[in-house]
């Protein structure tokens, strides 16, 4: 499966540009989409999910144009929006049976077999007799992904799925997506950079409707080489760094160490802080550090 996005624009009102000249090729595997609130991530996902049309540009899935073949795309699509409603009085089997019927899985025996399989995959089989209204946030999210999996979609789109999940549910959920990615395209939009780092093999960063980074998470970390620094300085200098809002240096963390403070900063070059501070390149830059370096670069 391959998605090709070519010079995609989306304008909502005359002056609201949501997407501006987006070009992306996305292959099988798990693809992470990062970016600030309001950057256009959800708009991009809705266009891919055939829910809205772009203002101009094209999206094709395996060579099929999305805008003019919506039904063909929808047959291969699983979509988990940011928020969704389910029927509180149904249990998960009934819920999936209902959605499966709507999705056009006609054979009842085959549908039941598939529902059993999916509920096992998302670890809800043991809760199959409980009503949806008794479900915790994590169970609801897993049922959300279960409905997205009905009909064996080859393209799975999940928009900020981990809000409201507790740490273990988050781990389980992102592992589930990573394990499923195989031949599928799994497109994940999130604010938890660490989740992209641990699960995605490919990613993009969007800001103000434009793609400002495209590559593997390791590539973004590599691009931050020479931008993440460890500074050991006095408390007063640390407070100056922190409060002055010095545009060239961004503090990402600080730890007390005796009379001194160990500060982790992002800075385009070696920070010039004078004799009293010792500066060294941070040896273990994370994807989050690299993301901050990218966003603060302009």
């Amino acid at each position, binding site marked *: 499966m391959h998605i090709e996005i070519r010079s995609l624009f989306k304008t909502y009102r005359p002056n609201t540009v949501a997407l501006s000249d987006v070009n992306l090729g996305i292959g099988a595997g798990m693809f992470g989409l990062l970016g600030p609130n309001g950057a256009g991530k959800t708009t991009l996902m809705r266009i891919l999910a055939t829910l809205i049309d772009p203002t101009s540009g094209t999206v094709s899935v395996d060579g099929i144009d999305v805008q003019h073949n919506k039904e063909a795309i929808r047959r291969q699509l699983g979509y988990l929006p940011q928020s969704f409603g389910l029927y509180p009085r149904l249990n998960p089997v009934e819920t999936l049976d209902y959605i499966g019927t709507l999705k056009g899985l006609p054979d009842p025996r085959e549908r039941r077999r598939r529902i059993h399989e999916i509920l096992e995959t998302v670890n809800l089989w043991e809760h199959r007799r409980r009503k949806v209204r008794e479900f915790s946030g994590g169970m609801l999210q897993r049922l959300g992904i279960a409905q997205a999996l009905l009909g064996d979609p080859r393209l799975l789109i999940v928009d900020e799925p981990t809000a409201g999940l507790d740490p273990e549910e988050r781990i389980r959920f992102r592992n*589930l997506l990573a394990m499923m990615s195989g031949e599928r395209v799994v497109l994940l939009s999130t*604010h938890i*950079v660490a989740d992209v780092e641990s699960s995605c*093999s490919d990613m993009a960063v969007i800001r103000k409707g434009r793609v400002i980074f495209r590559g593997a998470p390791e590539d973004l970390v590599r691009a931050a080489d020479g931008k993440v620094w460890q500074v050991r300085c006095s408390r007063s200098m640390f407070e100056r760094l922190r409060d002055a809002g010095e545009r060239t240096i961004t503090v990402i*963390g600080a730890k007390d160490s005796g009379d001194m403070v160990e500060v982790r900063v992002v800075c385009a070059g070696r920070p010039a802080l004078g004799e009293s501070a010792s500066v060294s390149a941070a040896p273990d830059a994370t994807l989050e550090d690299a993301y901050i370096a990218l966003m603060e670069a302009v």
Partner: protein
Amino acid sequence: METTRTELVASSLWAMGSGTHRQVRSKAKRAWAVCGIDHVFVAGVTAVVGPNGSGKTTLLRLLATIRAPARGEVVFEGRRVDTGGVSSADIRRYRACLGYLPQSFGLYPGMSSRQFVRYIGELKAVDPRELDERVDRALVMCGLDPACNRTLSRRSEGERRRTGLAAAVVAWPRVAILDEPMRSSDPIERLRCKGLLRALADAGAVCIVASSAISDVDGLCDRLLVLDGGRLAFAGAPHELTAMAQGCVFTAEFPSAAACGHQPPTGTVDTVIASASRRPGGTMRVRAVTPPGWTRSPEWVPARPSLEEAYLWLRTFGASSSYRD
């Protein structure tokens, strides 16, 4: 008696569920949400984490004197301040230096962020000569533009949440109790929020932060509390937790997802997958936490535990009882 440092003491606190959590509401309505918690909160950032329904919000409400404990006491600088106490003067004095961000709250939809934060600042009796400067500073530190006069009804959820955070810190509290301050924030907004909490803590405040993402408190908190069923499963420095999981985290690369030999996504009986990612060429790289003394097969290579992995280890293998299940 000398009290040079700000200290907030929870002394064998017990409370019933607040009913915020779905499962608490429907199944265990009468269960204890907080069961005998003892902890001294000192200056610095203390993160409170744990599964949904483990009592985080109830504990924060007790500390914020929103609820009275069924048993136990909250003590601030030697004076009892929980609402079960006797001296209303002590409670008032405590509340005057308290900043609280609840899990959800109402805002006046017709006000701008600045108007709202200024209003709270007035209620908090911030010195009028400093008020405007403090309001602007709180707004900027929360990533909000003081000059923006868009009303709260037209702000995004993240902006409303950050307005609440700015209101909680506008009087520069000595005790800040924040329930998921980073929810709905993007990574840069999270970074700013961490900077704000660090600054409060460095100024000597007791900061207590509940969070549902371990990565949000990693590198930020000085102390970590892990709640489980209303009890403390761990209390200590983050590096003490990762030290506990040392030698119990391994990584391996498998030719395919199926070849991991695991029931995705949780792993087998004796290993729990912490993360999995597909590598170029289609192989699967897996990190897993294991019980102490696990005999590894040769494909597994020891790895240094992250705080999230240490948490996962604690939850799965830390309490011997849950492992025997």
